[in-house]
């Protein structure tokens, strides 16, 4: 079920109403049933996959807790294999076999692997990682194994964050399902305000920008440099509003019922370095990879070459988490490369800053860093958005070897300028919303919700899916 659908408009108030009407002991069941309905609105049969990983991780958690030594580790490995196995079959099979066929063909072996013809279950990477974090945390002894199967199933399936996060940790979310949650007016207003702002980002900004970006990226080969450049900047803003909008709605929806989910975005395009960007962008995934991959690999407390290796591995795995496509691999490699380069060039860049006197004007220095970081991140987005690596290189090449007029090239049959102006208007609204005093949002939540809803109705587009659903 999409958040931006009529069904959710009915579903959510009904679930919230029932949640507060029911006594505490039945609420978990209501939320679990609601989560099943929410998930089954996409492809009903895929709930069996969820059921499989939930069952494996539930028993693995208990067995990890009850056993010692190598047996304990074996259960963790079984859990990891089960989760990664599901991902491998549903997400990476076609990618792996396709590349293997190409490789075998290059050494003279013709081999065709069967096409399983399966659709990627929605939000698979999200709930798999959330489930994995549970068994890892139980193994580490940070949380006790959950004994109630229904509560554990709810931890994996909690509908606000089931299909696109934030990816929660068991320490944070599991105790909330056990605790009594009396109705709280602050939670209700805070949650509704957050949801309204999320819908604004998605429906008013992201879906508007998609109108411009989609046709340009559908045919990068025949677009001019200026059009691709504008579309790429628009995509940077679109993906931020699309995904952070989803996170806001998820966090807000959970909060209305009193549940607190982690913040997933903290104005990432105001980051002054790529490293800072990753502490502000998709925080729940970045921290997942930090805690379960980067630090176990040794983090930065190792030799320098090993540190670089750890960074590159972490970003390449993160890239593959997003999708089974070489475009994502290049995107991840670029980000890993940015971080390695920033470490290697730290001293020379500091000397340069001192030489030109930028260290005496920290505000200007930060502004320049923010701009430079935005350029780096936006260039990498070309690979994230393009459908093939060849298309991405074509688009990137056209931007870097800028040619042609500073004018659009007929993407929309003579209404390019209108669409461009409308997109700029949407971005202006987003910037304006950044400047809104918190008072308006929280001391006058009613006014904020009413105004935002009216803006959404009048200026919104009906754009459909969220980008991150495909992961």
């Amino acid at each position, binding site marked *: 079920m999409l958040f931006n659908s009529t069904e959710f408009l009915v579903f959510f108030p009904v679930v919230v109403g029932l949640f507060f009407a029911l006594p505490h002991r039945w609420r978990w069941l209501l939320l679990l049933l609601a989560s099943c309905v929410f998930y089954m609105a996409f492809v009903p049969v895929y709930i069996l996959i969820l059921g499989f990983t939930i069952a494996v991780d539930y028993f693995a958690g208990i067995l990890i807790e009850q056993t010692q030594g190598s047996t304990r580790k074996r259960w963790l490995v079984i859990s990891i294999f089960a989760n990664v196995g599901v991902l491998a079959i549903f997400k990476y099979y076609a990618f792996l076999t396709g590349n293997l066929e190409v490789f075998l063909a290059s050494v003279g072996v013709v081999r065709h692997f069967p096409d399983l013809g399966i659709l990627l279950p929605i939000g698979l990477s999200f709930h798999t990682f959330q489930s994995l974090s549970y068994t890892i945390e139980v193994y580490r002894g940070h949380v006790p194994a959950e004994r109630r199967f229904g509560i554990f199933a709810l931890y994996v399936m909690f509908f606000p964050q089931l299909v696109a996060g934030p990816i929660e940790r068991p320490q944070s979310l599991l105790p909330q399902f056990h605790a009594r949650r009396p109705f709280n007016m*602050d939670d209700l207003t805070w949650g*509704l*305000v957050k949801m309204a702002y999320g819908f604004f980002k998605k429906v008013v900004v992201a879906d508007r920008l998609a109108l411009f970006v989609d046709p340009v990226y559908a045919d990068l080969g025949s677009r001019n440099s200026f059009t691709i450049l504008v579309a790429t900047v628009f995509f940077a803003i679109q993906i931020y509003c699309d995904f952070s909008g989803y996170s806001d709605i998820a966090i807000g929806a959970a909060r209305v019922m009193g549940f607190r989910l982690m913040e997933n975005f903290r104005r990432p395009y105001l980051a002054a370095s790529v490293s800072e960007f990753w502490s502000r962008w998709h925080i729940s995934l970045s921290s997942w990879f930090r805690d379960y991959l980067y630090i176990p690999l040794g983090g930065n407390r190792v030799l320098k070459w090993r540190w670089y290796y750890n960074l590159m591995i972490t970003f390449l795995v993160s890239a593959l988490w997003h999708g089974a496509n070489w475009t994502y691999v290049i995107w991840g490699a670029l980000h890993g490369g940015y971080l390695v380069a920033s470490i290697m060039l730290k001293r020379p860049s500091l000397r340069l800053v001192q030489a030109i006197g930028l260290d005496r004007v920290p505000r200007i220095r930060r502004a320049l860093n923010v701009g430079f970081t935005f350029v780096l991140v936006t260039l990498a987005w070309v690979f994230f958005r393009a459908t093939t690596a060849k298309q991405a290189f074509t688009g990137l090449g056209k931007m870097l070897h800028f040619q042609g007029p500073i004018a659009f090239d007929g993407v929309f049959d003579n*209404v390019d300028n209108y669409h461009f102006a409308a997109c700029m208007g949407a971005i202006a609204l987003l910037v304006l919303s950044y400047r809104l005093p918190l008072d308006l949002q*929280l001391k006058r939540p*009613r006014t904020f919700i009413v105004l935002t809803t009216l803006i959404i*109705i*009048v200026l919104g587009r009906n754009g459909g899916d969220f980008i991150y659903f495909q992961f």
Partner: protein
Amino acid sequence: MAETSSTSSSKRTAFRFLLSTVVGIAVGCLLLDWPLTRLALANENFGAFKVHRMFTGDHPGEVAIIGSSRAAGSYVPSLLGDSVFNYGIEETGWREVRLMLTKELSKPKSTPVIVNFEYSFFDGHQPNTAHFIPTADEPEVRQFLGKRMRWFYRFPTLRYFGSVDEYVRVFIPLLIRKGQVSDNGFFIDKGPDRATRDKMLAIGKSKLPMRWRTHPTEEKAFLDLLGSTQRTIVLAISPYYPEFYTNFGHMEQAETWLAAARSLPNVVVVDLGRMPLPETDYLNITHVMLPGAEAFSKELRKELNERGIEL
């Protein structure tokens, strides 16, 4: 987002908060509906205005021209008669024409009706719902929209969700009065530059050849509609770029349908599709420029006068 200090946690307070929020949104929607409707109907060239005009008045004595963008950009009302209105709507096909013609024929009038004939008339086509939202209260319009009729089209302001763009986009040229000629529903750009026109012609040519696709049910239903009235219906064919005809496939089937229409006692077919026009009078393969529209309108008036039809 920082959290506020604790407020009352009672459900009664929450109910009051939610109720007042919903009332606030409802009042906002009621207040915004009027300016949005004005915006949708501000431009007489826009489909929303034309559909609304067709459904909200009889306009006795008026001669209606019904058709697609080819009609909207080819028939100059002031050159055709004193009381002619061009109801040609962009992005329309047979279904929209049937809706408009049915409504026009239901009016207590005796004036002729001009329908612009298209060779792609009966091909599949999805209506642009933005044209019909301000008139969605009319039962015929609701029936016409069918599955595309959304529940929120009946609520003030909410009905315009996702469609406001369509109205703004046609309103802005009107506001800045940029390069458009309009005349009782007829509208046309004064003229894009030569390069744009060449590009549009090239795009059109690249889509050739076109062909008549048989749609027996639709074809018969339309003939039945044409023959269901005593009023004179002029089935006119506005000019196509010559290459259209040299590449058009299954013309004999189109001619068969036109012959069936011609055999109806109240139908007059005026075929000016091959009317000779200079190359520069074409905007693209199916549309003419202003001089082409003027020449066609004068010729049509002459043809109709010769057949004793005064507009």
